[in-house]
């Protein structure tokens, strides 16, 4: 780990953004989504994105603004019901949506970040979720083999970071952020506060800094 701070500006993120890239985004109905980074992605003009996360927020909140502004080609998500625009584009054939049970989504991302080839889950057995998937039976129970998910970039929201990128999340804003930190080629976190390395008790770090490539201080705390 380099000894200098990982802090960058929103603008410094631009060279990392490109058409067609895949994005893991933290957050649950916008809580724990880095709104500033989403804004930067919107402003950059990139399109044909694949976005992977719990839900598509609303047309105004969270990742939803990228959907509303037609920058997204594919959504991999557990729930799209709060963003009418996602459903409209899907039904119009403009947007590819892969719906994944929330617990399965979490495990697939965790697998993608931890060198695992997949997990065996009973969730989805006997439903349309099992279509096209390998099914295994052990001790009389059917399981689906659910395969890993990764992305080019993960955009996270944390409350506090230290210079080394160690992250601390607040309340329900944690959700998908810690597992996404494992599963992307480039990991950037928008944070409310950056403190010197050593200022966070090592027991309380929720995402180790070695997983985080860059930090952006949120414009409004």
């Amino acid at each position, binding site marked *: 780990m380099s000894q200098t701070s990982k802090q960058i500006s929103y603008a410094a993120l631009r060279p990392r953004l490109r058409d067609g890239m895949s994005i893991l985004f933290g957050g*649950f*109905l*916008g*809580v*724990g989504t880095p709104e500033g980074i989403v804004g930067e992605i919107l402003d950059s003009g990139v399109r044909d994105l694949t976005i992977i996360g*719990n*839900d598509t927020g609303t047309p105004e909140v969270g990742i939803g603004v990228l959907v509303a502004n037609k920058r997204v080609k594919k959504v991999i*998500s*557990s*729930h*799209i*019901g*709060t963003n009418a625009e996602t*459903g409209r584009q*899907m*039904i119009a054939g403009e947007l590819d*949506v892969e*719906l994944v*049970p*929330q*617990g*399965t*989504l*979490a*495990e697939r991302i*965790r697998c993608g970040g931890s060198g695992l080839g997949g997990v065996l*889950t*009973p*969730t*989805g*057995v*006997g*439903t*349309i*979720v099992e279509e096209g998937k390998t099914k295994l039976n052990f001790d009389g129970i059917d399981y689906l083999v659910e395969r890993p998910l990764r992305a080019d970039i993960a955009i996270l929201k944390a*409350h506090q970071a230290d210079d080394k990128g160690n992250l601390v*999340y*607040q*309340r*329900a*804003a*944690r*959700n*998908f*952020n*810690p*597992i996404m930190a494992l599963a992307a080629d480039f990991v950037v976190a928008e944070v409310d506060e950056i403190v010197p390395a050593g200022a966070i008790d090592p027991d309380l770090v*929720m995402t180790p800094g070695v997983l985080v490539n860059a930090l952006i201080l949120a414009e409004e705390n």
Partner: protein
Amino acid sequence: MDAKNLIAFRVAQEMKDGDVVNLGIGLPTLVPDYLPEDVHITLQSENGFLGLGPLNGKTLPNLVNAGGKPCGMVPGTAFFDSAMSFCIIRGGHVDVTVLGGLQVDQEGNLANWMVPGKMIPGMGGAMDLVTGAKNVIVAMEHATKEGGAKILKRCTLPLTAAKKVSAIITELAVFRFIDGKLVLTETAPGVTLDDIRARTEAEFVVSPECCEMETPREVQPV
């Protein structure tokens, strides 16, 4: 008291002291209002915590329920990430999940997450909850707004999970799945077996112990 509150009251009587409970959005969120005084439950929220409490007036940063609405928390709450949240859910650490249903059938199948070509919100955490919780209670009005049956011989909508429902509680009746069979165990005050048969497509057994459904004191028939 309207049908929703009647159902929520009856569901609340299913809870045992110490239960870990996940409540779906809508009707199920009314359940805590009707808990017996000596029953304390811990509410799990799939967005990553155990200890959900009422809002109590003040909104706290990043403290929201799985519907994204501000909520409160009780002393001894714990937050964790989504992977851990579903380890808890899928791993059988949730005693009871209460969800609404579009359709339930006599095999214990539940459909509650999409109507093809019409409404496709996604399953969210429902598939994991129904698969993993020890007790799956479907809390719903007995019939559709148009009066159609929702308790069917076989679900026609895409399933949420197969053969996982433990009980169905409506404003008219309580059904339980016992040894794989749908069994009528309670009927609401003033509701006859014929009323239930008329509004239920599924085949069901009437329990020899079938009794009157408990309702809040103020609506008990005199």
